[in-house]
């Protein structure tokens, strides 16, 4: 059924608006990539057609009256103004239609709510404005270290501010996508670190709020390898429109290899804290961290803007190191400044603090090492 609908939609759009690119005039929901999402799609189409049918009958009678029963045609008004039989009928018939709609809806819902027997568990945490994915211990991975990473939007500010052509996946690209194996039941445990976010991938028909203090559960099983894109769907502040979701479904062997690589990388990250760093190394690393974690509020050149303070020559950044570390690690409560202590590694925290103290004319020449950050966090 859906293929016809899509074709009809494209045809209507094409003839009415003579669109140059038909693909952009998508008018309907697309069928999904999982069994649940296909059930939801069928449910959507069923209700849509029932509504269309009711609309044709009701509006048909109405338009016919408008056409035929007008004064200008000399139509005399009738005198009826009630009819018990008709009134009872048009109360009972809609009720029956609703029951017919409710049956498949209930079945689909019960199926979607059954989150048992998951084979892969991923904890999803919403942050302003990025997602964190943590891969928890599962059957087959007992004893292996857990690992996790942040998933930031990869679209550049130049594209957003129209200084550069927009990429095909404009606003829907991330640096580190969630990777899942095909054919396995994946369970997500959703929560949030600051405000409420909502994790949505349309092709899975999964939209679930990530709420601070709560853990919500959803599950999906993707059959076809591929890249599936979505967005945050709960207003979460300034960059709500800029925290996409990307899921890559890959064959199981590839997934196992990928997970092994990430575990190894997580181990290396821990070793970075131990390493001896030079000022240049830290500044170089810090520039990259600044661009992903800080620039959207404090500006590419540290000049701030609106409610976000400038970092150029500000005492916090040029004078007291402890105060600087405190703000970056613990955030400032009641403001948009988050506690990055839990979001960035010690190496990244040290690098970004060092970078800020030495960039844009803040030439303090001071550096903060990952070990100092580690000690600060554990003091």
């Amino acid at each position, binding site marked *: 059924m859906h293929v016809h609908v899509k074709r009809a939609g494209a045809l209507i759009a094409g003839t009415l608006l003579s669109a140059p690119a038909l693909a952009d005039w998508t*008018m309907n929901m697309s069928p999904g990539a999982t069994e649940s999402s296909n059930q939801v799609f069928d449910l959507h189409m069923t209700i849509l057609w029932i509504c269309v049918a009711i609309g044709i009958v009701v509006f048909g009678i109405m338009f016919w009256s408008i056409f035929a029963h007008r004064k200008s045609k000399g139509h005399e008004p009738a*005198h009826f103004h009630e009819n018990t039989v008709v009134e009872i009928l048009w109360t009972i018939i809609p009720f029956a239609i609703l029951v017919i709609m409710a049956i498949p809806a209930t079945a689909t819902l019960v199926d979607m709510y059954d989150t048992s027997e998951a084979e892969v568990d991923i904890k999803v945490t919403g942050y302003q404005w990025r997602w964190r994915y943590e891969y928890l211990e599962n059957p087959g991975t007992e004893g292996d270290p857990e690992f996790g990473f942040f998933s930031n939007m990869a679209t550049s500010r130049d594209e957003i501010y129209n200084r550069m052509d927009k990429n095909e996946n404009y606003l829907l690209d991330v640096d580190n996508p969630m990777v899942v194996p095909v054919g396995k039941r994946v369970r997500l445990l959703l929560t949030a670190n600051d405000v409420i976010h909502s994790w949505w991938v349309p092709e899975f028909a999964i939209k679930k709020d990530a709420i601070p203090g709560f853990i919500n559960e959803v599950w999906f099983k993707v059959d076809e390898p591929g890249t599936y894109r979505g967005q945050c769907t709960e207003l979460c*502040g300034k960059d*709500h429109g800029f925290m996409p979701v990307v899921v890559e479904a890959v064959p199981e062997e590839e997934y196992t290899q990928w997970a092994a690589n990430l575990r190894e990388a997580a181990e290396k990250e821990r070793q970075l804290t131990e390493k001896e760093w030079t000022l240049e190394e830290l500044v170089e690393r810090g520039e990259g961290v600044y661009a992903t974690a800080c620039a959207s509020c404090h500006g590419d050149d540290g000049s701030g803007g609106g*409610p976000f303070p400038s970092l150029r020559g500000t005492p916090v950044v040029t004078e007291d190191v402890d105060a600087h570390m405190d703000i970056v690690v613990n955030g400032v409560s009641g403001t948009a400044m988050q506690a990055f202590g839990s979001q960035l590694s010690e190496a990244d925290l040290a690098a970004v603090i060092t970078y800020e103290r030495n960039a844009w004319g803040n030439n303090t020449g001071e550096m903060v090492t990952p070990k100092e950050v580690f000690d600060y966090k554990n003091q």
Partner: protein
Amino acid sequence: MSAVADTHAQDHHHGPAKGITRWLLTTNHKDIGSMYLMFSFAMFLLGGSMAMVIRAELFQPGLQIVEPEFFNQMTTMHGLIMVFGAVMPAFVGLANWMLPLMVGAPDMALPRMNNWSFWLLPAAFLMLVSTLFMQGGAPNFGWTFYAPLSTTYGPPSTTFFIFAIHIMGVSSIMGAINVIATILNMRAPGMTLMKMPMFVWTWLITAFLLIAVMPVLAGVVTMMLMDINFGTSFFDAAGGGDPVLFQHVFWFFGHPEVYIMILPAFGVVSHIIPAFARKKLFGYASMVYAVGAIALLSFLVWAHHMFTVGIPIFGQLFFMYATMLIAVPTGVKVFNWVATMFRGSMTFEAPMLFSVAFVILFTIGGFSGLMLAIAPADFQYHDTYFVVAHFHYVLVPGAIFGIFAAAYYWLPKWTGTMYDETLAKTHFWLSFVGMNLAFFPMHFLGLAGMPRRIPDYALQFADFNMVSSVGAFMFGATQLLFLFIVVKCARGNGEKAAAKPWDGAEGLEWTVPSPAPYHTFATPPEVK
């Protein structure tokens, strides 16, 4: 306008005071009604101009005109101003003007309180709008102000927003008490409850809804106030609070609130369709019961706004079934309106055009509402442009077309002059085309996957967004024409209106001269 009316007064009452004191100190329901209507139209233009900013930014992908920070302030203020400043006061204005005339009462039951209810509103909105100029900007968390975005993470101006909501709530509650007192105590002899005009019935039920839920809104903003300023943790998970509690309390207010904005429009349309079909309203009794049923059900469905927060499956099923049930009484109303038109003798002056469009387009909004009620499908629709399309279809051609229909229908009674029919029809058709162009493509955008409340969007949404923006500009600009039509009519520039300018109209309001004298029904009329 009523200054002219004074000369028509047959009794010995004094006329309106001179100068500004007439408006500041008035206890006359007609003056207060006019002030409510003028205030709401000013707010409609203000909230509308914010919508224009939103649509201008969304005209193309990328950020061009405003920053995301300001964009969020615009969506928030647009929603708050339209709901609390434009739609609600417009219906209170219509109630002030028409309820005493419809039930044969000389004025509202509590005229001094009436004056105060009105004058609180400019104060509240002055405070709300002033937040735009405060440090940190205006509220930017959406008109639903979900915690903790609005509490822990809200701008400093949030406290002013809370106080403005409190004042609006006080105004609404007093207005509702006044409506109930007037309807229950001041009906003309012989007007039993089941003989009351539909507009009176719908407003009576609306007033009870207001009294039931405005204190809940006041409660939820007070909890926010405590969380922000006095260290409590109602909604802060870190302090043992519950962010989801906020949503339950808010929507316990919020769902009846949407019926508060539509029921009086049901009443208006139930007068206009019979008048222009020249045939009695079909199924009066079932219309009354349907409104009652909708009002009762509105208290049992709030969590359908929260299908994605993770409520247990039995809660999910309960709220899904209860929400679907609302389609039954709403369907009855639509069928009754169609049956009223059926075999009538119809003409299509502006009030009728707006009313017919109301029935069609509100029904489309009802259909998308039914789709949204299906919980598993709602996972796909929730917080996308499909929802934006849905609630604009029930609010714009629903509430706002209802208000336009009422204005054109009763303008001759208010001003004593017929409005310019050609201009009014132009206003209708431009509004109709603009509104559909603006909001119908939003259904497609939502189904294709565009979330709401985003300042920028992925490239596949570009085409329909552009269409939608063009429609929105067209709809917005057209409303200046309405202002022109009303001003022209109020200045007496047009044909003189008869006491009953519509040959099919019924009701006590048409038994007094046009314009309605400053004081009417000093002696109650007899209703048979």
